[in-house]
């Protein structure tokens, strides 16, 4: 089967991962999958100023996802929307299992992700970028979290849907995956499919995650072992 952009069914779009692209943030990362670009910044663990936010036995993880006004064809009004609120939530829950929040009682860790350009798969790009930014910040983690979506078009499972494929697919199923434990920390699906196919699509997404995982590790090595200077563009 040939896809609209010429990729094979199990092929990702071109992927670029960079760590340490911002100076102020304790950790930062840029993930570019095709034209979709996510920039993540991490602050913390730091003292939470408002007492009511503090949790006595663990740290508080905050995640904010935002699409920049000029990231899509139709301008997006600045500020939060119902969509960005939901994605912020699922992103936070996808990342939390790999953190040792119990080590940071009463403290807070903040993740900010800005989608600079959007062309399908912004939530998965956001999770990939946030995960590398957390590691770049030196926050103790069990593993990196990796995310990608998959679907089924013309009877075949396809990885990393883009453009028209999002309308053609029988389902859109994004996952977040913790490779070392082989666990799933984000699972969503829109569509209508038998169980067999749901499993097939999920397995393909896991395969995609393994590829992204290597790129994430490579970006962190370049930043911290080879000390390569990275920039956003």
């Amino acid at each position, binding site marked *: 089967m040939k896809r609209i952009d010429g990729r094979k069914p199990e092929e990702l779009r071109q992927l670029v991962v960079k760590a340490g692209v*911002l*100076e*102020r943030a304790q950790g930062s990362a840029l993930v570019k999958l095709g034209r979709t670009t996510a920039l993540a910044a991490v602050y913390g663990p730091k003292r939470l100023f408002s007492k009511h936010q503090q949790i006595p036995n663990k740290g508080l993880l905050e995640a904010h996802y935002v699409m920049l006004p*000029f*990231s899509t*064809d*139709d*301008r997006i009004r600045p500020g939060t929307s119902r969509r960005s609120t939901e994605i912020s939530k699922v992103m936070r829950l996808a990342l939390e299992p790999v953190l040792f929040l119990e080590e940071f009682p009463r403290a807070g860790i903040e993740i*900010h992700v800005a989608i600079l350009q959007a*062309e399908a798969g912004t939530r998965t790009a956001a999770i990939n970028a946030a995960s590398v930014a957390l590691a770049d910040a030196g926050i103790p983690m069990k593993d990196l979290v990796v995310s990608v979506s998959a679907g089924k078009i013309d009877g075949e499972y396809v990885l990393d849907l883009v453009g028209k494929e999002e309308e053609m697919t029988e389902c859109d199923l994004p996952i977040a995956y913790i490779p070392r434990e082989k666990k799933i920390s984000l699972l969503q699906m829109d569509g209508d499919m038998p169980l067999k196919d749901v499993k097939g699509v999920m397995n393909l997404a896991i395969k995609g995650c393994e590829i992204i995982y290597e790129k994430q590790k490579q970006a962190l090595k370049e930043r911290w072992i080879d000390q390569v200077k990275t920039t956003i563009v």
Partner: protein
Amino acid sequence: MTTKSDYIVDLAKRSLRTDRRKEDEFRKIEIQKGVIEKAEGSALVRIGSTQVMAGVKMEVKAPFEDTPNEGVLIVGAELSPMASPKFRSGPPGEDAVELARVVDRSIRESHSIDVEKLCITEKEKVWIVNVDIYMLDDGGNLLDAGAIAAVSALLDARMPKYEDGKVIYAEKTKTKVPLTCKPVAISHVKIGDYLFVDPLSEEEEASTAKLTVGTKDNGNICALQKSGVDPFTLKQLDQMFEKSIELGKQIRKLL
């Protein structure tokens, strides 16, 4: 006052700065245009370690009733919590609103866009030009960086195709946004009794007053904003006006 601020104030008495710059010296300015394909125009601007991104989105709407044959330019800016631990998420605070309005004024009030050329059909359809500025990394002087990014994004912008009452964003025409001049904003901070341009964020914290001066290609002044609690003498103002015109000329060459 922090120890760091005390140190900066102490250095200022000898006209010295923590990064060894002269009082009227800018950090290195880098401008990269066309960084976001989905935007009609875009730019990433770096001044030292400060990073700011601006993008232009255009849409077709009805004009305001009192200006039936004029398009509209709207400039917005966000001080995102990504850029600095000082900023919080949520509705923009007074500093963010002030910054956005000063950048907006320096571009709009300088009449830097020929708004009549943005009219498609009088009283019915005009182009709305949205310029959004997003702060990525606050190493100081976000305002000047934001203004440079906004003008650079406008210079980079190409009008999208407009056909049968629809904007086709995927197809850009060769037509540029009708820019008539390139306004440049220069911010000065007062530390002790001394004035410095292009402040680092630590210098902004140590300062007691700030003046931003927007200038045009012809040397006219198109925006002024004084902030901070400390007043300026007339002599200091003169010095800052002259300096802004001179530095504006140099920076305009980079745009």
